[in-house]
């Protein structure tokens, strides 16, 4: 459902399970309109889609049961932007390890699930400072950002198309491949929305994707 009257882009949030509302609230604060995606027809007219945090097993199984695997791959191929946080990053990956779940293969990186351990190993840490020689992606724009890791995955073996945008402890925590962004922490749980903002700015910077055209007769609440 559209959450605000802002004139910004309509951004889908996969509505199967997880902290869907937190992402909708983040979008609203940034002047974008959020819409829950529960089936292929909810993708019509979208330029961008968020795969939220939650349980990657539940979300991965839900994608299959809701016939969303192929439509989301087509959405990405048509130039649609996708941001996956935590479980969403696992779902976007080339493959997952440690109790593997089926993934979409939309970014050339492996996700090691629960790589830090159980909830007792969850933590909050600042992003590595810019200029650190180990952190090719230690960019100025994230300076001071606090990253919330909850039963988080680690990203392994990035392919050549993957750009590391930010690191914590010299390990990649925010990566992109074109318009597909994967993030192992939860920017939606904090007031610091730089990740959402930078990802959304990428939409404005480039032309609209040649995806399925918006259906003006479609019910905006779908």
């Amino acid at each position, binding site marked *: 459902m559209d959450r605000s009257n802002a004139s910004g882009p309509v951004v889908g949030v996969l509505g199967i*399970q*997880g902290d869907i509302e937190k992402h909708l609230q983040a979008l609203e604060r940034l002047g974008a309109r959020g819409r829950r995606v529960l089936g292929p027809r909810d993708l019509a007219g979208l330029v961008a889609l968020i795969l939220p945090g*939650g349980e990657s097993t*539940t979300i991965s199984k839900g994608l299959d049961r809701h016939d969303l695997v192929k439509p989301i791959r087509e959405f990405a191929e048509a130039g649609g932007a996708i941001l996956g946080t935590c479980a969403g990053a696992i779902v976007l990956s080339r493959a997952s390890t440690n109790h593997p779940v089926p993934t979409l293969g939309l970014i050339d990186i492996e996700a090691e699930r629960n790589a830090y351990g159980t909830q007792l190993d969850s933590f*909050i840490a600042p992003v590595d400072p810019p200029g650190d020689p180990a952190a090719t992606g230690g960019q100025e724009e994230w300076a001071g950002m606090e990253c*919330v890791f*909850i*039963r988080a995955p680690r990203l392994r073996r990035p392919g050549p198309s993957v750009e590391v945008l930010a690191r914590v402890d010299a390990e990649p925590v925010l990566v992109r491949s074109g318009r597909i962004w994967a993030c192992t922490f939860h920017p939606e749980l904090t007031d610091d929305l730089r990740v959402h903002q930078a990802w959304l700015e990428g939409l404005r910077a480039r032309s609209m994707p040649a995806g399925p055209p918006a259906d003006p007769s479609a019910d905006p609440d779908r």
Partner: protein
Amino acid sequence: MSDEQGRNGNGRRGAEAFELKVGLAEMMKNGVIMDVTDAEQAKIAEDSGACAVMALERVPADIRRDGGVARMSSVEMIEQIQKTVSIPVMAKVRIGHLQEARVLEAMGVDFIDESEVLTPADDEHHIAKHDYRVPFVCGARNLGEALRRIGEGAAMIRTKGEAGSGNIVEAVRHLRSVVGEMRMIQAMPEEELMATAKKMGAPYELVRYVHENGRLPVPNFAAGGIATPPDAALCRSLGAEAVFVGSGIFKSADPAARARAVVHANTHWQDPEEVLNACRGLGSAMEGIEMETLAESERLANRGW
């Protein structure tokens, strides 16, 4: 810990940070948490799309039938379930049992339910939950009880309902009570907040939070008596952000089918066509208990203070 927010020298914080406890509860939103008694059931729950499992030796319906003292489950059983599934594993401790909670924390369970389903260990006090690194969920029948538990450090609230009854009426009563009292506090003038906090037996700062935000500061889930897909949808429509299903799944005729159906209805609670689809081909639900046939002393929801 070097500053008031628990940051160490590197600016890092660990699992004791309340944001991380509430954060895991946030990740369970829009999901179904299922009671399981062994690794095989845990696998069925995970395969059906559960977002977490609650490991316990006997489901509430059997605790009710068997009587006797109900305690924390055997550690071997919980470990077996931890090895089998990759979704979060929760387990129950008796109300006020500080040391059962320390044992589960040492085992690395992801969430502890300080639960009225087990026989209380303390008939006046609950656990001081901020002192633990593991997050806690507690049951509540009304807003005052919910805010007392949050004041003690609970990172998630669930309705008590009447566990093991297969009867949704108590969960509905508790949800309406919590949500209705929040609406009332949100609408009331500021000068009435203190007297309301006193009357409810709730911390003033938390009453104030509800007044300003119209919701609890932690996720609010439903539990107790959920047996069918429309039961889950009903709880969601009354304001629950996720549901626990206890005896309802593994006391039914076809647990795997029912587990999938409850997950589906929970996701699509706003779409009656999809809830209808979830109702097909399920076989019989668990048998239920009429509340009038339960003496006050047999009602688990009355435990907790």
